[in-house]
C-alpha cells in the first residue's frame, strides 16, 4: 500500500469494467465463404485491396464483397457495421496510406 493510498487520489480514468467480447468462431475453411474487404477510404487502399481480392479468389475460392467507410477520419457508422457483419463470414479491414 502506498502512503497516499489509491483512495486518497481521484483517478482521471473511467474504471468501469468493460466485459471482454469473445472472438467470433474461427472459420474451418475459406472455401465458399463470404469475405468483406472493408476499406477505410484512404487514398491507395484500392491497390492493396484489389491484390487481396485477387489472392483470396484465386487461392481460396471465396466470395468477396467490398465495403467502404465514409471517411477514414471517423468511426464506421453503426449501420455499416451491422450490414457488413450480417453479410459476411469474415471481414478484413484495411488501413492504407
Amino acid at each position: 500500500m502506498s502512503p497516499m493510498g489509491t483512495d486518497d487520489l481521484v483517478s482521471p480514468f473511467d474504471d468501469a469494467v468493460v466485459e471482454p467480447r469473445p472472438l467470433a468462431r474461427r472459420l474451418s475453411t475459406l472455401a465458399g465463404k463470404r469475405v468483406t474487404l472493408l476499406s477505410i477510404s484512404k487514398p491507395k487502399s484500392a491497390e492493396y485491396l484489389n491484390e487481396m481480392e485477387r489472392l483470396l479468389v484465386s487461392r481460396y475460392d471465396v466470395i468477396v464483397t467490398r465495403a467502404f467507410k465514409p471517411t477514414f477520419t471517423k468511426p464506421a457508422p453503426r449501420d455499416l457495421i451491422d450490414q457488413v457483419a450480417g453479410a459476411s463470414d469474415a471481414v478484413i479491414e484495411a488501413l492504407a496510406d
Partner: protein
Amino acid sequence: MLGIGERAPDFLLEGAHGGLVSLVELTRGGPALVVFVAEECPTSRMTLERLEALREPFAAAGATLVAVHQDSAETAAQTMRRCGAAYLALVEPAPFRTAEAYGVRTVPTAFLVDEHASVVASIEGWSRDELQVVAETVARRKPGGPIGRLSAEPPAIKPGCGSKNTLDAATVAAMSVADFDELEDLFERGWTDGLPVVPPTRERVRRMLDGRSPQRSFGPVPPGMGELTLERLAACAVLAGCKPEYFPVVTAAAEATLEPAFNVHGMTNTTHTAGPVVIVSGPIREQIGMNSGINAMGGWNRANATIGRAIRLMVGLTGRGAPPDLDRSTLGQPGKISFCFAENEEASPWESLAVSRGFAPGESVVTLYCGDAPFSVSDHYSREPDDILYTIAMAGAAVFSPTMFPIAAETVFVIGPEHARSLAGAGWKKRDVAERIVEVTKRQVGDMKRGERGPFVAGLPDDAWLPKWMSPDEVVIVVSGGHAGRFSAVLPPWVGYGLGSKMVSKRLREDL
C-alpha cells in the same frame, strides 16, 4: 510520558535540513521546548503553526523551539513550509526510540526541558492554556523580554493522534513516507504525459470543483469512451497544474472538445501531427492572468500552460487517447503536451476571434482548433499590406503538404501585433486579409502534379488555377503576441474537405 522533574534522556537526531543535534546541545544555553509531531496528524500541524508565535520570544529568552518529526526529512521540511514555520526540525526514523524513551503516546506531545535536562512541563495534544503557561515560564528567564502569545482562536484543546512508536512495525511501514515519492508514484500509475503531475488528492479536486457537482457528466471521451464526469475533469486539471480559477476555461474547452464537429476521435487516432489548440478570448484572459503578449504561444505562464495540458490529459487519460495505443501520430509535436494561448485583444485593431464567430463583445469564450505546431513567419521588411500578406500567405500555402491544393480546411493565422497594425493602418479589415491570403496563394495545377495532391488535380488542365482555401471563411485570423517584432504564424490544420475537424467555440458558463 515523562513527568515534571524527571530526567529527559539525551538524543542525537538528524536535522530536517542536515546535521546532527543532541538534547545536550539544545539545552546548553537555556531550555528547549521539544515537541514530538507527525505530519499526518492535523493536531500536530495546527500546533506547529501556532507555536511559531513563540519562536522569536523563546530565542530572546535563550530558549529553543524544536520539533521531533516522525516523518522523513523531506516531509518535515514540507510541513514547515506549509505551516509557515521556522522552528528547528529534527527527524526520528522508525522504530522511534526517542519517542519511546520519553513515553510519548500521542503526537503532539511537548516537553519543556531545562539546562539540567530536567522536564519542567509536559503536555499531550494541543492545550493552549498549558502551552501559554510554558511561554510565560520561558519569558520569566529574561524579565522585560517579549512574551509569546498563542492565538486565541479555537480550539483551546485538541486531542492528538497515535504516536508512531505505539504502532506495530507493519502499520508504521505502511505509513512511512521515507521511501515514497508521490511524483514517481504518479509516473508509475501512468497518470502523466511524461512530465511530473500534481497529485489529484481529494482535497485538491474538491477545491478545483469549488462546489460544482462532481458526478455531472459530459458523456464519453473518444476514442476510449471513458465517461467524463466533472470530478474526472477536475482531476485532469489538478494533474495539469491548474488553479481552481482556471476551471471554467477548462470546462468550456472540454465541452468544445467533445462536440462531434471537433472530431476528437479522429484527431487522436490519426497518424497526422495535429492536436487540440485552445484559444481564449474575452475578459477571463486577464482575470486568470493568461499571457497574450510576449511568448504568447510558448508557455511559461501557468494558465496558458496548464489549461492546454488539462485538455490533453483529459483526452489521453479519461479518453485513453495516449500514444502509442490510441494516439497514433507518426511524429507528434510539442503542442501535444499543451497548446493554449490567449488573443491579444488589447493590441488587436480588429474584433476578436470570439466576436468574429458570433459572440458578443465582453463575453469570455474558448475556441478549440485542431492544429499543428506553429510555423512562424518573419517579415521585418514589408510595410505594405500586400507585401506582408504575400510573405504570410506563402507560409500558409505549405500547410498539410506544399502540394496539397486545395487543403479546404479552416486554418488559423496568428497575426503579430506589429503586422496587424500595419495591415489595419492601411484600412484592411480581417476579411480583406483573409481574401488576400486566398488570392495570393492560388497555384496552377501543373505545379501540383508531383507529391501529395488533392482530389481535383487529376481532372484539370495544367494551366487551371487552384486555391489553397475554398473560401476566405476558412482563413481564421487571430491577433496574439508581443508588441515588438514583425512576426506572424500559421497553425497548420489537420485534413480538410470536411473530413477532419471543425473549430468549436463555447462561452464560459455560469453553471459550470
